[in-house]
C-alpha cells in the first residue's frame, strides 16, 4: 500500500473523478472495491480519504468524516492517545505503529466499538506527510474466537467439575492434562503429574497392562469398562473403571490418549456387601428348608446306619461260628459301603447348610440336579411320590454357585411334593434342557392341583406363602438366586394339569 498514492488532496479529486486519467480510475476502483477499510489522513490527523468499506464499517458517510480528525473513529483510550502518537512520531521519528500494524478498536457512529487490525503506512506529497490506514475488521474472527474460548472454558469447567477422573497423555505415557477429580482421587496435583509418566499411579504388577492399552490406542482402538487398580499418592489402591480413546492431531495422526476413569471402589464394596447379604439370606433360607427336611433326612440317614449295623452284627455272628470268616468278609465290605453312603449324605447336608460366600465356578447342570434331587426327594418315595428325571445330554457348562442352584432345586422339589400331598397320583418330574446355545434350562413339574391365579401372581414375592410351615421366602430367594446368575424363573400350567416351574441360566463356564 505504500505505492498507493492518493490522487489529490481534495475530496473532489477522488470522489468526482472529473478529468481523471486511467490511473485515477484504477485507484478509485481499488478504493471502492477493497474489502478492507482504507483511510488516508493528513499529518495533523484530518481525514482525507474514507472508502466505501470504511463507510460500511463505521456507519458514517465519507462526507461526515472527511476533513475531521480521525480520532473521531476511535474509542477511548485510543482517541486521547492518538494526537500524542502523531506528535511523538513527528518529533522523534519513532514508529509505534507505522509499517507494523496492530490490533486496536474502532468507534462506530452508533457509539459501539469493534475490534480491528490497523496497518499504517506513511507517505509524502510535495513535502507534506500523510498516513494511509488499512482497517481489517476482526469482529467475526474475534467473535468466533470468543465463542471458541467460551466453549473451551465450558469444556474445561465440565472437565474440572467432573466426578470422574479425566486426563490425557501422549503416546509415551506422559501426562498432558489432569483434572480436579484426578487430583482429588489420586492425591497428586497437576503440577506433580503433567509431563510425568502415568506409571507413577500404576501398580508395578499392572504396568504391562497399561502398555497393552497404549498399544491398542496406537492402533486407533477405543477401550471401555476396563476395570483395574491404581495407586494413590498415599500408596493405597483405588479400583477404577477406565475408558480410553485416541487423540488425533489436525493431520489425523494419533498423538495421545484421552482417559476417563471412574472410581468404582465404593460401588464394588457395595456390590460385595449386597452379595454378602444375599448369601446370608440364602443361607438362612437353606437352614429353614433343612429344618423342614430334618425328619426326612434323619430317616434317610438311618437307612445306611441300620444296614451297617445289620451287616456288622451278621459278620460278628458268622465270625463266632466255625468257618464263618469267609462268609463274613463280603458282609463287612457291604457294611463299609453303607458307611460311605451315610458319609455322602452328611457331606451333602453339610455343604448345603454351610455358611458361605457367593462363589461361582464352572458346573454341570445335570450334576447339580442329581445332587439336589438326592436331598430334595428325601422321604418322598415313602409318601408314594414317583420321581421321573430326564437329563438332557450335551448341555453346555454354566458359571454358577453350585449350592445356591441346588437350593433353588430343593425348594422347588419340596414345594412340588407338598402340592401333591392330597392327590391320588403323585408324579414329580425333573428335566434339564437346552433352549438355545447360550442357555440351559431346568423344569420341575408336579401333578398337584395347580396354582390359583392370585397365588401365581404373588408367587415370587417374599413372605407370601400358602403353607403353615416355613418363612414364605423360599421362592423369593429362588428368584433372587436365579437373577444373581443372570437367569430367569417362571411358572407354567402344563396341559395335563399340575404346576411346572422353569428356570434358565446363561451357559458358559467362565465369568
Amino acid at each position, binding site marked *: 500500500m505504500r505505492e498507493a498514492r492518493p490522487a489529490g488532496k481534495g475530496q473532489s479529486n477522488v470522489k468526482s473523478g472529473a478529468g481523471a486519467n486511467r490511473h485515477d480510475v484504477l485507484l478509485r476502483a481499488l478504493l471502492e472495491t477493497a474489502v478492507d477499510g482504507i483511510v488516508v489522513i493528513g499529518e495533523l490527523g484530518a481525514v482525507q480519504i474514507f472508502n466505501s468499506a470504511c463507510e460500511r464499517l463505521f456507519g458514517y458517510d465519507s462526507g461526515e468524516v472527511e476533513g475531521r480528525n480521525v480520532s473521531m473513529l476511535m474509542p477511548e483510550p485510543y482517541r486521547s492517545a492518538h494526537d500524542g502518537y502523531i506528535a511523538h512520531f513527528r518529533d522523534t521519528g519513532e514508529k509505534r505503529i507505522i509499517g507494523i500494524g496492530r490490533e486496536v478498536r474502532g468507534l462506530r457512529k452508533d457509539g459501539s466499538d469493534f475490534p480491528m487490525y490497523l496497518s499504517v503506512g506513511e507517505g509524502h506529497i510535495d513535502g507534506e506527510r500523510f498516513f494511509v490506514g488499512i482497517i481489517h475488521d476482526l469482529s467475526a474472527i474475534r467473535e468466533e474466537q470468543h465463542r471458541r474460548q467460551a466453549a473451551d472454558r465450558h469444556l474445561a469447567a465440565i472437565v474440572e467439575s467432573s466426578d470422574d477422573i479425566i486426563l490425557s497423555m501422549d503416546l509415551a505415557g506422559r501426562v498432558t492434562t489432569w483434572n480436579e477429580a484426578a487430583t482429588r482421587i489420586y492425591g497428586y496435583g497437576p503440577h506433580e503429574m503433567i509431563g510425568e509418566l502415568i506409571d507413577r499411579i500404576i501398580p508395578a504388577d499392572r504396568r504391562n497392562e497399561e502398555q497393552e492399552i497404549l498399544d491398542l490406542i496406537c492402533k486407533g482402538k477405543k477401550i471401555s469398562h476396563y476395570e483395574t487398580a491404581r495407586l494413590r499418592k498415599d500408596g493405597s489402591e483405588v479400583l477404577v473403571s477406565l475408558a480410553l480413546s485416541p487423540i488425533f492431531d489436525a493431520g489425523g495422526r494419533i498423538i495421545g490418549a484421552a482417559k476417563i476413569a471412574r472410581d468404582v471402589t465404593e460401588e464394588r464394596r457395595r456390590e460385595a456387601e449386597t452379595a454378602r447379604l444375599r448369601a446370608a439370606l440364602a443361607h438362612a433360607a437353606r437352614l429353614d428348608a433343612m429344618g423342614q427336611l430334618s425328619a426326612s433326612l434323619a430317616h434317610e440317614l438311618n437307612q445306611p446306619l*441300620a444296614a451297617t449295623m*445289620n451287616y456288622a452284627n451278621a459278620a460278628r455272628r458268622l465270625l463266632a461260628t466255625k468257618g464263618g470268616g469267609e462268609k463274613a468278609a463280603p458282609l463287612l465290605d457291604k457294611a463299609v459301603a453303607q458307611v460311605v453312603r451315610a458319609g455322602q449324605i452328611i457331606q451333602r447336608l453339610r455343604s448345603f447348610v454351610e455358611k458361605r460366600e457367593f462363589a461361582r465356578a464352572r458346573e454341570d447342570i445335570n450334576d447339580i440336579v442329581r445332587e439336589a434331587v438326592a436331598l430334595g426327594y428325601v422321604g418322598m418315595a415313602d409318601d408314594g411320590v414317583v420321581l421321573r428325571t430326564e437329563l438332557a445330554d450335551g448341555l453346555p457348562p454354566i458359571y454358577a454357585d453350585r449350592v445356591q442352584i441346588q437350593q433353588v432345586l430343593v425348594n422347588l422339589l419340596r414345594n412340588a411334593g407338598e402340592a401333591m400331598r392330597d392327590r391320588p397320583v403323585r408324579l414329580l418330574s425333573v428335566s434339564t434342557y437346552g433352549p438355545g446355545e447360550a442357555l440351559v434350562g431346568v423344569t420341575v413339574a408336579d401333578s398337584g392341583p395347580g396354582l390359583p391365579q392370585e397365588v401365581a401372581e404373588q408367587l415370587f414375592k417374599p413372605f407370601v406363602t400358602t403353607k403353615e410351615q416355613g418363612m414364605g421366602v423360599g421362592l423369593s430367594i429362588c428368584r433372587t438366586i436365579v437373577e444373581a446368575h443372570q437367569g430367569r424363573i417362571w411358572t407354567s400350567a402344563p396341559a395335563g394339569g399340575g404346576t411346572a416351574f422353569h428356570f434358565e441360566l446363561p451357559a458358559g463356564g467362565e465369568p
Partner: protein
Amino acid sequence: MSDAQLVCVVDDDESVRLSLRALLEASAYTVNDFDSALRFLASDALGRCDCLVVDVRMPEMNGLALQEELNRRGRVFPVIVITGHGDVPLAVRAMKAGALDFIEKPFDGEVMLASVGRALEVSRATRDEAAEARAAKDLLDLLTPRERNVLEQLVAGRSNKVAAYELGISPRTVEIHRARIMDKFNVRSLSEVVRIALTATRFG
C-alpha cells in the same frame, strides 16, 4: 429251633432289607425278602410265614396298612415293625393293630434277633395251640347231643345235682354221661375234660 420256621422281611429300602436278611441268615434263620407289601401278599410265602418283619414307611402300602390287611385276612403270625426316628405315633398304631414288637432304626442286631426269636416262639405256640384246639374239637365231635349238654353244665362249673336239675334228668344219669365223656376223651379227671372243652372253643 429255626428248622422249618420262615421269617419274611418286607422293606422297600434295599440296603436295609438285604442287610437284615444277612443278619437273620447269619443266625441260621430261613428268610424270604420282599421290596413291597403287595409282593408279599401275592407270594406263597404268606401261607408259610412264621414271623413278619416290616418297615412301617413304604410307598403304595405301608407297614400299617399291611398289618390291617393281614388282620382282615385272618393271618395270625407275629409282626415286628421297624420304624425310623420320629415315627413313634406310627409305632403306637402298629402295636394297637396287634404288632408283637416295634424296633427303632438303627437297631442293635441282638435286639432284632431276640425279637424275632420271641416272635417265632409265639408263632410255634400259636401253631401248637391251634393243633390242640383242632384235636379238642375232634374229641368234642365224638359226643352225643346229651353228652354235650352235660359237658356245657360241667364247664359252667355246676355240680352234678344242679346239672341234673337244669337238664331235667337224674344226678345218676349225669354221672353216667360224665364217665362216658371222660372215657371218650381218654382222661382221668374232670379238670382235663374242662381244659379240652375250653381249648376247643378258643379258636372258634
